[in-house]
C-alpha cells in the first residue's frame, strides 16, 4: 500500500492540483461552500499521504526530515480547519519535488552521458573457439574478445590479431581515430571505427582507464568542501531545532497558525542543495570537455589561483628535443660519437634520446660503471677512459678546462636557445651539442588567455640553462623564468611562493615533478591520461591538451561563484521569510511554501547554467 502510494506520486500531484482548482472555482464562481471545502479536504488528504509515509519512514530511522515538518504543519492547518492552506502546501511541496527531480536530472546529464558510453557487452571467445556475446561483467583478465567495426572496446587490453582505427575520444578527448595494430593498447569505451580486432583483456570493469575516470568524476561530484560539511551538520540539527522552535512559539502565543507557518518556513532546502548542484553541474561540464576537476575543494582553490608555474619540457615545449648545433674539439670525431651514443642509449633522459637519435647507429662499445649525476648528466667508463656527458656544472665538477673558444661557442649556443650537452674524455672537452625543444603550438595564446583570467604570475621552471629558459619565457610572454632547477629546487621555489601568500598551480608532466605537483595548491599533470597523471593531480587534462587550461580555469571560477550565488540566494530567502513572518501581515503558510520551493528551483536553475559554460577570453 505504502509503496503503491509512493509510486503514484505524479498522478497524486495532478489530482490534488485539479481538486484545488475545483475548490477555488466553486467558491468564487458558484459560491458553493460545501463543494469548495470538500474538494480542498480531499486534495489535502491525497497530497499528505505520500509525504506522511516518507515522514514516518524517516522517523523510523531517527531522522527528522523535511517531510516530518510538512506533515506536522499540514496536520496543524487541518486541525484549525484551514483547508485552503493544507491543500496548497501539500500540492506545492509535491509539485516542487517533481520539478526538482526533473531539473536535477539536467544538471547530472553530463555524467550520465559519460556513463552511458560504458560498454555493456562483449564478444568472448569460448572454449570451443566460438565468439559468444556476454555481459561485460563476465569478462575476466586474459579472455580473448572480438571487436567488430562500429563496436565499443569492452575492456582495456592489447590487440592480438587484426588492425583498425579507433576513436578514443571517450578517454583522451581527441576525436581523430588512432591506428591500432598487433600489441597496440586499446581502452574500454573507445569505438572501433573500421577494421576488426581480437584483443586480450588486461583490465576489466572499474579497473579500466574509463572505469577509473567515471569513478573519479563521481567521487569529485560527491566530494564535500568544508562549507558543505558544515551545512550538512547544521541541517541535521536545524530541522529538529525548527520543530522545537515552532512548538515553543505555539505554546507561548497559543497561535497555531503562526507555529505551523514557522514549520514550513524553516524547511531547509535551497541551502542544502545549492552547493552540491553547482558542484555537480560544474564538474559535469568539465568531464564533457575533457577536464577532470577533482572535487569542490579543488574548484575553490583553483578559482583563486594567481600564480601558475610551468615545467618547461613536455609542458610548454613538445618534449621531443632535437640536436640543432654541434661543435667538436677533436680530430677523432667518430670515436667520440660512438662513445656518446653507447652511453646515452642507456638513459631515458629526453636530451639523451635526442643525442642517440642524432648520432644514429655507431660501433658497439662496452660501457662500464655508469653513474647518473642528478641535474648534471652522466659519467661512465669505456675501455678505461672516464667520460662525462652533461651540462656546464658537470664539467666544472669534473674540473674540465673550458677554452676561450669553447666558452664563446657555449655562449652562442645558449643565445640560440639550446640546451647544452658537453662531452669530456679523460678530463678534456671533446664535443658540444646544442639541443632544442620546439615550443608546442598554441601555447602562447593559451598563456595570454590565462593572463586575461587574472593569473598574475606565469612562471617557467626548468633544469635547462637560463638562456634556453629565457628564450622560451620571452617568446611566450611569461613573467618569470628560472633555469638550472633540480626537482628539489622546483618544489622549494613553489613552497616559497605559497609562503608569500600566493595560490599556486603547478603544471608538469607528472613523472619527475611529483613533489611539486603535490606541494602546489593545484597540481595539473599533463601525462596523456596515464594512470600516474590521473591519480596524482588535482586537475587532469585529457590527452595532455594544454589548450583546455583556460576552460578549466574559467570553469572553476564560474563554478565557485555559482556556489556563492546559491548560498546568497538560499540564506537571503530564509532571512526574508523569517523577517516577514514576524513583521508583515501577508506572510502565511502557502506563500512560505511557494517561496521556499521557488528558491530551491532558483538555485537548481542557476546551477544548470554551468552545464553550458564556455570560456570567453
Amino acid at each position, binding site marked *: 500500500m*505504502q*509503496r503503491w502510494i*509512493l*509510486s503514484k506520486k505524479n498522478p497524486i500531484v495532478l489530482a490534488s492540483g485539479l481538486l484545488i482548482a475545483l475548490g477555488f472555482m466553486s467558491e468564487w464562481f458558484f459560491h458553493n461552500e460545501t463543494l469548495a471545502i470538500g474538494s480542498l479536504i480531499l486534495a489535502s488528504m491525497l497530497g499528505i499521504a*505520500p509525504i506522511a*509515509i*516518507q515522514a514516518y*519512514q*524517516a522517523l523510523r*530511522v*531517527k*531522522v527528522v*526530515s*523535511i517531510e516530518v515538518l510538512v506533515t506536522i504543519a499540514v496536520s496543524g492547518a487541518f486541525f484549525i480547519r484551514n483547508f485552503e492552506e493544507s491543500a496548497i502546501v501539500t500540492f506545492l511541496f509535491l509539485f516542487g*519535488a517533481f520539478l*526538482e*527531480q526533473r531539473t*536535477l*536530472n539536467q544538471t*547530472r546529464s553530463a*555524467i550520465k552521458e559519460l556513463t552511458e558510453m560504458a560498454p555493456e557487452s562483449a564478444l568472448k571467445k569460448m572454449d570451443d573457439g566460438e565468439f559468444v556475446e556476454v555481459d561485460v*561483467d563476465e569478462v575476466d583478465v586474459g579472455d580473448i574478445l572480438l571487436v567488430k567495426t562500429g563496436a565499443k572496446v569492452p575492456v582495456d587490453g592489447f590487440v592480438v590479431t587484426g588492425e583498425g582505427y579507433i576513436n578514443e575520444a571517450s578517454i583522451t578527448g581527441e576525436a581523430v581515430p588512432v591506428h591500432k595494430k598487433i600489441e597496440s593498447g586499446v581502452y574500454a569505451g573507445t569505438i572501433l571505427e573500421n577494421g576488426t580486432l581480437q584483443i586480450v583483456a588486461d583490465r576489466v570493469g572499474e579497473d579500466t582507464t574509463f572505469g577509473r575516470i567515471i569513478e573519479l568524476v*563521481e567521487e569529485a*561530484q*560527491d566530494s564535500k568542501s568544508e562549507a558543505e560539511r558544515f551545512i*550538512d551538520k547544521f*541541517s*541535521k540539527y536545524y*530541522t529538529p531545532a525548527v520543530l522545537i522552535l515552532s512548538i515553543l512559539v505555539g505554546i507561548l502565543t497559543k497561535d497555531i497558525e503562526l507555529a505551523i507557518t514557522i514549520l514550513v518556513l524553516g524547511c*531547509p*532546502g535551497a541551502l*542544502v*542543495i545549492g552547493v*552540491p548542484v553547482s*558542484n*555537480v553541474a560544474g564538474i559535469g561540464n568539465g568531464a564533457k570537455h575533457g577536464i577532470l576537476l577533482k572535487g569542490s575543494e579543488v574548484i575553490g582553490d583553483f578559482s583563486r589561483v594567481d600564480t601558475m608555474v610551468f615545467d618547461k619540457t613536455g609542458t610548454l615545449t613538445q618534449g621531443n628535443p632535437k640536436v640543432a648545433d654541434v661543435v667538436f674539439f677533436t680530430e677523432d670525431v667518430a670515436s667520440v660519437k660512438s662513445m656518446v651514443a653507447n652511453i646515452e642509449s642507456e638513459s631515458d633522459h629526453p636530451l639523451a634520446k635526442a643525442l642517440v637519435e642524432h648520432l644514429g647507429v655507431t660501433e658497439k662499445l662496452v660501457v662500464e660503471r655508469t653513474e647518473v649525476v642528478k641535474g648534471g648528466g652522466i659519467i661512465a667508463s669505456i675501455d678505461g677512459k672516464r667520460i662525462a656527458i652533461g651540462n656546464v656544472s658537470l664539467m666544472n665538477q669534473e674540473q674540465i678546462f673550458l677554452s676561450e673558444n669553447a666558452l664563446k661557442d657555449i655562449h652562442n649556443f645558449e643565445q640560440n636557445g639550446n640546451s647544452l650537452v658537453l662531452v669530456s674524455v679523460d678530463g678534456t672537452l671533446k664535443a658540444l651539442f646544442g639541443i632544442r625543444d620546439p615550443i608546442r603550438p598554441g601555447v602562447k595564446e593559451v598563456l595570454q588567455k590565462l593572463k586575461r583570467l587574472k593569473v598574475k604570475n606565469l612562471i617557467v621552471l626548468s633544469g635547462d640553462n637560463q638562456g634556453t629558459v629565457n628564450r622560451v619565457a620571452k617568446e611566450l610572454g611569461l613573467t618569470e623564468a628560472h633555469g638550472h632547477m633540480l626537482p628539489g629546487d622546483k618544489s622549494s621555489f613553489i613552497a616559497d611562493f605559497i609562503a608569500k601568500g600566493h595560490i599556486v598551480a603547478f603544471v608538469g608532466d607528472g613523472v619527475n615533478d611529483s613533489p611539486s605537483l603535490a606541494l602546489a595548491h593545484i597540481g595539473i599533470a599533463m601525462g596523456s591520461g596515464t594512470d600516474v597523471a590521473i591519480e596524482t593531480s588535482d586537475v587532469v587534462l585529457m590527452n595532455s591538451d594544454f589548450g583546455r587550461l583556460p576552460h578549466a580555469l574559467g570553469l572553476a571560477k564560474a563554478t565557485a561563484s555559482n556556489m556563492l550565488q546559491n548560498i546568497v540566494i538560499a540564506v537571503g530567502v530564509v532571512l526574508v521569510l523569517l523577517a516577514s513572518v514576524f513583521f508583515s501581515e501577508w506572510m502565511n503558510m502557502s506563500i512560505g511554501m511557494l517561496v521556499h520551493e521557488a528558491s530551491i528551483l532558483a538555485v537548481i536553475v542557476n546551477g544548470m547554467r554551468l552545464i553550458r559554460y564556455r570560456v570567453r577570453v
Partner: protein
Amino acid sequence: MQKATIQLETLVCPSCSMKIESAVKSLPGVNKDSVKVSFSTSKVKLDFDSTSLTIETIEKAITALGYVVIKSQVKPQ
C-alpha cells in the same frame, strides 16, 4: 564480505541520502564504515556479509523508505 552498488532513482535532497544511509547502516551484517550514499549519482555503495544478509533485504530496506531501486550489482570483495 561482498561489495554492493545499488543504483537508485534520482535523489532530490541531500537529506534523502542521510535517511538511506542510516537505514542501510542499521541492517545487521552491513559494514557501517563502508556505506556511502552518493547524492549526485544516486548510488549506494556498501560492503556486507553475504552469509547473514542478502542484497534483496538491503534493497527492501531502501524501497521501504520510498526510493526506487533501479538495479544493483554485487561483487565479491
